[in-house]
């Protein structure tokens, strides 16, 4: 831009145009960042157990490593949230979280010895807890609390695309190359994930309005107790916990069944059961975000939660591999609605409290409790009473979650 000191309007306009271009590239950066992060997280899931088995690990030790990861993640949810609240440069938080993922993936790939695997698990557990809140906070920064639902819908779309591509690519990588290659691929992807952070980092440069807003927000903080005892936040957290208690075991249980019963290509069917819901989520997430802004958070959450009992009943009534894959695609709606409404309700409650990330950590902690007990509980029921009863019990948790949303969770959409 040519320097034009005489006319203030032109300089001002240039300034504003520059600001808008920066905002657009930040939006795109966040899209890609969501995609890559979802991509990266694929390898750290249940696949770790497969990888460690190929490295000659005993099942007992694998269980220990996985428990350690879970405990690290659960224990760091709220402390990590509190830490992120203290740091005004959220892009920096995201950068260091990704760096920790790189280190963790390299630990897994290069040194599959107990020391490094435990270290990698702990590192991954902690940095997941700083990354999630950082993404939500950057979204809030970019969109503002009025249009956050739309932005979160977009986040959910790109995360779903990343999940789908990640599962397909890493599954193929594990099958055709080696399970170790999956973690090298993960490490390479973390490097790619840094690039879309660059336009986001620019938002937090000193002097930018975004950075100033963040600074002023940090100045006053509400007491933790008053934020965490908010009825809407508590209600949402309990609902989300109940839902996850019913939801997390659904796919493993159904997958186990498909492996047992599928006529041919059980592996491909399970892959479809993982990828298909992501396609559904990618398709409908933006609409869900709009719906949350136009008709309220409760409606979207209720719709999402209702799919769980439907799925449970379908699994129990039609124990047939093809049917299961189709019913599993409903999970796309549930996952997207939870992913959008979580940060949205938390923002409604705590965006201006200076405790947004802590509140997100609290919600994450509650969801983590549900996830931790889900598979064990479902396995126990399936052993004792058979698969149909297990599916119906999981459905029951879904009914309870949906009913609780409708009766006990207040609407938080600002008018």
């Amino acid at each position: 831009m040519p320097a034009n000191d005489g006319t203030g309007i032109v300089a001002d306009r240039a300034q504003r145009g520059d600001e808008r271009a920066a905002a657009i590239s930040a939006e795109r950066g966040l899209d890609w960042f969501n995609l890559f992060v979802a991509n990266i997280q694929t390898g750290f899931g249940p696949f770790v157990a497969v990888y460690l088995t190929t490295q000659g690990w005993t099942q007992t030790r694998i269980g220990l490593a996985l428990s350690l990861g879970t405990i690290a993640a659960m224990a760091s949810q709220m402390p990590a949230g509190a830490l992120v609240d203290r740091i005004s440069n959220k892009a920096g938080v995201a950068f260091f979280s990704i760096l920790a993922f790189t280190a963790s993936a390299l630990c897994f790939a290069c040194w599959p010895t107990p020391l490094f695997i435990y270290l990698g698990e702990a590192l991954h557990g902690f940095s997941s807890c700083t990354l999630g809140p950082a993404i939500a906070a950057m979204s809030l920064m970019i969109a503002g609390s009025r249009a956050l639902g739309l932005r979160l819908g977009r986040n959910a779309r790109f995360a779903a695309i990343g999940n789908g591509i990640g599962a397909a690519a890493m599954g193929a990588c594990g099958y055709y190359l080696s399970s170790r290659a999956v973690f090298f691929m993960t490490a390479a992807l973390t490097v790619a994930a840094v690039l879309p952070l660059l336009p986001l980092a620019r938002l937090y440069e000193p002097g930018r309005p975004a950075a100033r807003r963040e600074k002023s927000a940090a100045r006053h903080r509400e007491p933790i107790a008053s934020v965490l005892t908010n009825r809407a936040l508590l209600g949402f957290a309990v609902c989300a916990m109940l839902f996850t208690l019913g939801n997390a075991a659904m796919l493993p249980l159904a997958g186990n069944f498909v492996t047992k019963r599928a006529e041919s290509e059980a592996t491909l069917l399970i892959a479809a059961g993982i990828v298909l819901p992501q396609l559904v989520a990618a398709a409908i997430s933006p609409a869900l975000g709009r719906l949350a802004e136009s008709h309220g958070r409760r409606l979207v959450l209720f719709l999402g939660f209702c799919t769980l009992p439907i799925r449970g009943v379908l699994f129990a009534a039609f124990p047939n591999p093809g049917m299961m894959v189709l019913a599993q695609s409903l999970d796309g709606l549930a996952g997207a609605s939870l992913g959008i409404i979580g940060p949205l309700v938390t923002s409604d409650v705590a965006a201006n409290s200076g405790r947004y990330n802590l509140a997100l950590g609290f919600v994450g902690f509650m969801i983590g409790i549900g996830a931790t007990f889900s598979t064990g509980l479902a396995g126990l029921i399936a052993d004792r009473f058979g698969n149909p009863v297990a599916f119906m019990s999981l459905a029951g948790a879904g009914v309870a979650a949906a009913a609780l949303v409708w009766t006990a969770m207040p609407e938080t959409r600002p008018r």
Partner: protein
Amino acid sequence: MTARPPKRVSRIRSAIAAAALLAVAGMSIGAPAQDRPPQAADDVPSPPAKSGPPGPSYLDPLYATEVTSVLGRNVIGPNGEKLGLITDVVVDRDGRPRAAVIDFGGFLGVGSRKVAIDWNLLKFDIEKRDRTVVLALDRREIQAAPEYKADAESTEMVGPPLVGSSSGGDAGK
């Protein structure tokens, strides 16, 4: 919770040792004309003369061309399709392997099942570079098997197919 893990680990250790021993035994039975490689006796290192903790009184070589570890090995079917991974070895009271526990199927760790397979149905082709273990059964013959439960009173393993069964494949030798 407190007593279990050590017991399990010791079981696995003894299982590995037993598996290695069995592999050695299998090799020598498979090649009756060949006794132990003659150079073996010369290669036995003499006990260390250095001071320090006393070493084992006798050392026997384990050649990579003769034995293999088994945990985490890929298992493939007769037609080469990938079936799963060996996660555990079940031994009887004499320490002889009875069954291999195979983590079967699944995608990215989702939906896999643990199935016990009769040890005699596994073929360890030590010479092969990738050291995959060949199972004499195909996917259909093990997919409906009951899940292996390490802690259960009794559990079932998949044995050789009965002669004249629908699959019609060659029965266990």
